[in-house]
């Protein structure tokens, strides 16, 4: 089997869900065709087994022919071998088709998420995208997987129908018409079953959420009590789920019974008719046994055909969601003819803020949301009238802009993986990392880890406390060392001692670079070259922290967190 993942997932056809599925199929056409071939061989060899048993009885047993019996016994064994080998080869090919479809879709999803970046959370809810990961890719893979068995089943059904019709036209017709009718009747039970199963799954999901809720709040619960209340609530929902399970079982048991009754009665009909035909000498005893075998065999390929239709439908629905994500376009793009801007003042016309290059500028806003909005504009994560050395940010190449201006806020995320790579994705080396950790006062965070910088960070960095995460994020931004760094409330979750240390070291760590800090911490403001006080979205005063403390009582009130009233 070829190695996966492929280096380049390719350029998908996203004009429609069907086209995307066909595009995926075309990517793995040799193994897809091979899987279809093996599936056909697998099912046809199974289909021939009843006839072979019948011939062995007729030509061997009834005729008391030792050689005939041996010959047909050998054929039967050979068919068994062919079934076993072609079955496993089909399975391997189909598994490869399934895996290469899901892996390719995952690669394309990540590629697309990377391409549209910050626009993605605005256009699709996390739930929608997560369902691409948890269920949609499975359905797409399932659609490609089923092509093999679907094709094989179709061929097998046709083969058996031809054999039956050549044995006896009336009996053949009974089978060919009867089996699909039987499937339809059984299918009538499937819909209500699926409905109840859905109810069951929803309730099961709710119950799991409830249990997860108890675990997540366990510390609170153990701290203040309430175990009995919540255990009682869980028990009540658990019993509801049990009742839903019993309701599912009621239909499921009917289905189980119908799976015995329908084919059973059908077999009785075929056997009865066959026996009468045999009595009249129209067919042999062996042919009767074979007939019985065929009618029993047909149930399986027909069930697989039904499954194929179901899985192709699901795959199509899933592909529609995936295609929708693949066709999203980023909100901010590079202009057709980007201009370059030299290093210079960064000006936000809306608030009247001017950031001088090479200095540590603070934004202290009475409403913290105002500072964050300015930061978003400066980093071009929101539209605004911002210029760098007089050039509008929208006229700059976006990749270049992202390299020069880095916005680091508290929504920034720590990704899972080795800590070193998380802090230093560009591989700048140990020295800059050590310096940044020192400046962010995060050395102790790393020292506490058993493997230091080689430790693995869990998803969302959840084993770190809020303050530790914040310091690691700050260190990461400092390692990136952009021309302009915009920090939003970088010390809101750390204790005063640590905040004092960070404030004292930030200036040195960013010496010669441009830094903007949105904060209301006096410790940090005191270190800034210039503080801009923002009220109602506008810069209303600028100066040093001490200068503003003296001049502006409203500034003093905002940054020392006293009550105004």
């Amino acid at each position, binding site marked *: 089997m070829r190695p996966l993942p492929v280096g380049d997932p390719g350029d998908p056809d996203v004009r429609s869900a069907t086209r995307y599925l066909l595009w995926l199929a075309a990517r793995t056409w040799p193994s897809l065709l091979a899987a279809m071939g093996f599936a056909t061989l697998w099912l046809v060899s199974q289909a021939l087994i009843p006839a072979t048993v019948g011939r*062995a009885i007729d030509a061997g047993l009834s005729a008391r022919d030792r050689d005939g019996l041996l010959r047909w016994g050998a054929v039967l064994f050979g068919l068994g071998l062919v079934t076993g080998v072609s079955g496993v080869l089909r399975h391997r090919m189909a598994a490869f088709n399934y895996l290469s479809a899901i892996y390719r879709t995952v690669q394309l999803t990540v590629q697309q998420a990377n391409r549209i970046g910050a626009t993605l959370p605005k256009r699709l809810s996390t739930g929608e995208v997560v369902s691409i990961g948890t269920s949609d890719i499975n359905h797409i893979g399932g659609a490609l997987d089923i092509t093999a068995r679907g094709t094989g089943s179709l061929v097998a059904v046709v083969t058996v129908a031809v054999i039956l019709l050549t044995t006896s036209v009336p009996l053949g017709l009974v089978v060919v018409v009867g089996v699909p009718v039987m499937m339809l009747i059984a299918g009538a039970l499937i819909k209500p079953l699926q409905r109840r199963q859905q109810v069951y799954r929803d309730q099961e999901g709710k119950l799991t959420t409830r249990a997860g*809720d*108890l*675990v997540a709040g366990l510390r609170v619960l153990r701290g203040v009590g*309430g175990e009995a209340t919540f255990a009682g609530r869980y028990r009540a929902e658990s019993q509801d789920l049990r009742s839903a*399970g019993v309701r599912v079982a009621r239909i499921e048991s009917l289905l189980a019974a119908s799976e015995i009754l329908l084919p059973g009665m059908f077999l*009785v009909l075929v056997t009865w008719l066959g026996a009468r035909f045999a009595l009249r000498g129209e067919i042999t005893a062996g042919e009767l046994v074979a007939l019985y075998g065929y009618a029993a065999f047909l149930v399986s390929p027909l069930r697989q055909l039904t499954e194929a239709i179901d899985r192709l439908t699901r795959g199509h629905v899933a592909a529609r969601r995936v295609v929708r994500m693949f066709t999203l376009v980023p909100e901010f793009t590079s202009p057709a003819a980007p201009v370059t801007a030299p290093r210079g003042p960064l000006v936000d016309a809306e608030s009247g803020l001017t950031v001088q290059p090479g200095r540590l500028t603070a934004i202290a806003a009475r409403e913290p949301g105002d500072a964050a909005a300015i930061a978003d504009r400066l980093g071009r994560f929101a539209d605004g009238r911002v210029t760098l050395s007089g050039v509008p940010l929208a006229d700059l190449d976006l990749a270049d802009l992202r390299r020069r201006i880095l916005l680091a806020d508290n929504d920034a995320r720590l990704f*899972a993986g080795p800590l070193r790579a998380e802090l230093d994705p560009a591989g700048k080396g140990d020295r800059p990392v050590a310096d940044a950790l020192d400046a962010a006062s995060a050395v102790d965070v790393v020292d506490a880890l*058993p493997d230091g910088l080689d430790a693995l960070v869990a998803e969302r960095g959840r084993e770190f406390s809020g303050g530790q995460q914040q310091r690691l994020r700050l260190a990461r931004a400092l390692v990136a060392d952009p021309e302009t760094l915009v920090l939003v409330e970088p010390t809101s979750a750390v204790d005063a001692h640590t905040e004092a240390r960070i404030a004292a070291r930030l200036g040195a760590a960013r010496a010669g670079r441009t830094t903007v800090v949105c904060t209301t911490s006096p410790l940090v403001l005191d270190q800034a070259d210039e503080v801009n006080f923002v009220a109602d979205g506008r810069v209303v005063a600028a100066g040093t922290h001490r200068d503003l403390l003296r001049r502006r009582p409203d500034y003093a009130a905002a940054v020392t967190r006293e*009550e105004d009233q």
Partner: protein
Amino acid sequence: MSRQLPIADAQEVRRYARALVRRHPGQLALALGLHGLAAVAGLVAPRLLGNLVEGLSTGTTTRTVDEVAMAIAAFVVTQAVLTRFAAFCSARLGERVLAELREEFVDRILAIPLSTVERAGTGDLLTRTSRDVSALSHSVRFAVPEILIATLTAVFVVAAILLTSPLLALPCLVAVPMLWFGTRWYLRRAPAGYLRENAAYSDITDGISETVEGSRTTEALRLQDRRRVRTDSDIARSYAAEKYTLMLRTVWFPIVEVGYVVPVVATLLLGGWFYLEGWVTLGEVTAATLYVQALVDPIDRLLSWLDELQVGGASLARLLGVAGRPAPTPTPTQTPAGRGQRLVAEDVRYAYVEGREVLHGIDLTVEPGERLAMVGPSGAGKSTLGRLLAGIHAPTGGSVTVGGVPLASLPLDELRSHVALVTQEHHVFIGTVRDNLVMARPGATDEEVRSALAAVDALDWVTALPSDLDTVVGTGGHPVPPAQAQQLALARLVLADPHTLVLDEATSLIDPRAARHLERSLAAVLQGRTVIAIAHRLFSAHDADRVAVVEDGRITELGSHAELVAAGGSYAALWRSWHGEEGHSAQKRRQSPYSTVA
């Protein structure tokens, strides 16, 4: 960082499974009996068909054919009806057992000592609650009944072959060694392989959600290549795991398939020879051949569900393991008499890991009604000391007592009425607002709930909710912003009414504006209680009666704010940098949380 919870051993799992089987003997016997009868009814048809075939070769009448066909039809109907009730009874029993299993598990979780939860973290427990419960559920609902039915059916088919002709049962035996050794080889490797496969697959889905949720960060820090590399390596790992299980199946499937066809061929050939020798009749050979073919389906189902059963067993072991750490039953030797007791720490030492002490002999006495602030750098041991003072961990050396009684020896209910720990962690439970509050004092009236809400200044927004106290909040319910969630937590405390509170950075994650509002709520809660505050912002330390500076696992400075500032130590240095040289508004601050009683 966190230690995993234990896992039950195989013996314990078996003992539990046996007890489970014996718990509902009547229902189990009914289900098994019905399945057995259904299986028997299902075996008659091939036998009659064999007779029919034999009749055709020896000569028979249309009437006989009609009668046999009617008989077969009757048995088919009987089998269908029996199957309906058998399937229903066993599913009903399964649902019942499953409900008992998960409810017992949740009871176990709720009984874990707090110190264990603190140490192991909630991640492992969450995995067990979601993944293991659903794996076990899958086993109980599908694997166990399928295996039971398949085994029963197989036993009856074998019995039917023996009844037809004991001689014709011999050819079947040729397949036993193949199936036995092949399946044993497979089952020894399969569960670990599938677990690895599932884990690798969840890494992929986790990676996707991380990529999507962090796409803004990816864009800002230009991490696109790293996301791509991570995805590709996740895929490569998943593919390796998939290839391993595929290899297992590539070996096992053909063995099993050949194992199914060999008995059919053997029965036919040996049966043919026996028939030619005159030892058996043609009808017997035909029936036996059909029975052997009928054996394939139950054996196949049995074998293919075995690995699911193994996975379910492993999950059960993890669920039972949660109880493997029995709650230390505190010996209620004595209880401190009433409120207003002094909290005393004497030579307190603590080590999370043996040999690595984080607190080195702390002596501290907190008087009733006192406000003590603890400050110090991160990692100095403030939070650990706070937990010891709240009785969550027992000290590894020295003692923490309230009214002379060691905190660690108090029963949980009793402990809660003395001291509570308030952290920045606030959790809104799924349920009504009322549920979220009365949990602290079961039986509290609506009036008490409302006055607790009013005390923390939260009554207004609660009253404005769509259904007032009956509004459902928590995951999936009405959204509650962090600051309001914190208020609910504080209202809970008002209801719980402990005389001593340990606050560990209780408001630090709230945005500064909301924090101001919260601190007012907090002030109401603190009224009339002893408070130990692990201070995050210095201005709360300023108003405390005493300040303890914790550095490197020791209390290095202890005294009032004024004393410490005058002493010129590390606290004084910090105070000066916070306020600038002028010490600007020190005299003007009046509204910080401690001021109401200071």
